[in-house]
């Protein structure tokens, strides 16, 4: 069947050997083929399957306590926090870079916001914008050092991680400070978690989920940018073949710097939401573990560590899986400390599955 349609396309009849098994003509036949095709066409598919299985497992294991608004508001809050950082890493990893300093921005930005509001009387929205700009500025620093001075981003961002984490701890002797509450700013960025007696129709039902809703909005915007704009195209080109991209006129240095800026901004945004949620700015809010979990979420979601491909939707689902494991295991009675063991195993399992599905598919195709 594949061969027949190929001959039609080849008026001279000079079939190249590669043409016989060219992409796009074979239809999957058996159910296994179909499943494999689906799994490999949508990189998000395998992690989505994992997510559904986990939800079912915890729902059963917890006597139907998992899928309640109250518990989900916790899981989705964590998903939102992790997800924002994960999509920042996705964009950078597509360009072939990585940012390990996001957790320091996650601490620094909201801390500066609250300091500005408390001691200088700057209104929260303005203080938040200034803090976002600070996050973006850290991104500029990371980007310029990486691109212009040719320091690998792994090293650049370890440097800025310690630099800015050190600064935020030093500012006020590592004391957390209480964040002011200014409506509607607080309601907009999330106040409290869902309580058992809250009505699903109340305003609070929305504000309880705002951290996640903001992340969802960010994922949609970034997905559009990645897949539908010139910037997204050039981001993929930069990571996929940097020399070729330069030869064809892609400004790869700029593309990388912009993505570092985006990462800094998203990390600052995540930190601000986190602080509003807890009404407190902790100089140690962001730990490098947060970054590593976000990178894990991105990778199990289907983003390549080698650059050139990645998906922000996958990263969001990956963040959900990580948040579900963290919270669900505790809920079904595991020690909080044990959940890392499962998380580690889950990351390895998901990665092996991902690689094997691609290999299996490649072998059956060819």
């Amino acid at each position, binding site marked *: 069947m594949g061969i027949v349609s*190929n001959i039609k*396309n*080849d008026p*001279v009849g*000079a*079939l*190249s050997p*590669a*043409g016989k098994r*060219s*992409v*796009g*003509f074979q239809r999957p036949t058996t159910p296994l083929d179909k499943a494999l095709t689906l799994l490999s066409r949508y990189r998000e598919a395998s992690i989505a399957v994992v997510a559904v299985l986990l939800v079912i497992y915890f729902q059963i294991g917890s006597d139907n306590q998992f899928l309640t608004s109250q518990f989900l508001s916790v899981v989705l809050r964590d998903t939102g926090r992790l997800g924002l950082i994960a999509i920042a890493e996705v964009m950078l990893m597509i360009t072939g870079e990585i940012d390990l300093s996001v957790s320091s921005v996650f601490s620094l930005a909201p801390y500066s916001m609250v300091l500005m509001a408390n001691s200088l009387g700057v209104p929260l929205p303005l203080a938040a914008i200034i803090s976002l700009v600070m996050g973006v500025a850290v991104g500029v620093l990371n980007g310029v050092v990486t691109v212009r001075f040719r320091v690998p981003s792994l090293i650049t961002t370890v440097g800025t991680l310690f630099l800015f984490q050190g600064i935020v701890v030093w500012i006020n002797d590592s004391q957390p400070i209480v964040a002011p509450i200014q409506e509607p700013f607080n309601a907009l960025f999330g106040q409290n978690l869902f309580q058992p007696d809250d009505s699903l129709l109340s305003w609070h039902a929305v504000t309880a989920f705002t951290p996640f809703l903001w992340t969802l909005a960010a994922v949609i915007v970034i997905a*559009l940018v990645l897949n*539908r*704009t*010139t910037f997204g*195209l*050039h981001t*993929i*080109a930069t*990571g*996929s*073949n940097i*020399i*070729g*991209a*330069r*030869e*064809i*006129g*892609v*400004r790869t240095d700029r593309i990388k710097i912009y993505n570092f800026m985006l990462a800094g901004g998203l990390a600052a945004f995540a930190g601000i939401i986190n602080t509003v949620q807890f009404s407190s700015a902790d100089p140690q809010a962001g730990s490098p573990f947060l970054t590593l979990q976000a990178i894990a979420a991105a990778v199990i979601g289907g983003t390549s560590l080698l650059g*050139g*491909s990645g998906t922000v939707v996958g990263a969001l689902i990956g963040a959900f899986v990580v948040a579900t494991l963290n919270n669900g295991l505790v809920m079904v009675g595991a020690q909080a400390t044990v959940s890392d063991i499962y998380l580690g195993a889950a990351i390895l399992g998901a990665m092996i599955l991902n690689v094997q599905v691609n290999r299996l598919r490649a072998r059956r195709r060819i």
Partner: protein
Amino acid sequence: MQNMNTPRLSDDAPVVLEMSHVSKSFGAVTALVDVSVKLRKGEVLALVGDNGAGKSTLIKVLSGYHKPDSGTITSKGKPIRFESPRDARSEGIETVYQDLALIGDLSIYHNMFIGREYRKRMFGMKFLDNQKMRGMAEEYLSTLGINIPNVNSTVDRLSGGQRQCVAVARSIYSAPSVLILDEPLAALGVRESAHVLGLVQKLRREREVSIILIVHNYSQIFEVCDRINFLHSGEIVLDAATSDITEEELTRTVKSGLGRLLRPEDAEIALAAVP
């Protein structure tokens, strides 16, 4: 020697692209030494030379990828400095690089239009017009007669020859005024090579495109080129019209490794040079 359907180029055709006294080195390696090249309007110029002679470096200077250490580039009569290949492309200089400069993770149609994407306005923002690019890519590739299954598939799934076709098609259909082809036929089959060479002639004839062609097969050179520049260890040692030199002389000259033109009367020298 001149092919019947290639018009004889007049000597007073304007120079569209010129490099004068360009040198370029990479650390200890000197790739180009005081190189001057002139390209006239509607001319097909062949660049020949051994592996590592500096041919690719030369065309990368003209394409804005390398900045020359010294020397100048003149485009359409005015001196110009290319900061990046982007600048060269906006001057109408299109290049098919030896490594093809294709993005393996992007679809064929995105590769065809990268750097000059079609966009459409939606909600006050500019988004890629994928539908238009897909359609045009399909049309271009089919008029080139290339057997490519599906413009949606990513480039890393294509065969070497198919890739080369995509790279050539991208440059040809970008409406260039200068087209630079670095070994565009290296991976192509007989039929595809003939097709590309045919297109080169057609572009020159119908649109007066000036072309620089790096090919190792000399019979192809005499089929389509007006002039030959021979690059030897980073220096231009021969600049001759194809009508003033025979294929045999060129072959013998390049083979000798002496870096100077050998006429039939120099046969003993050529023999002596070949071990």
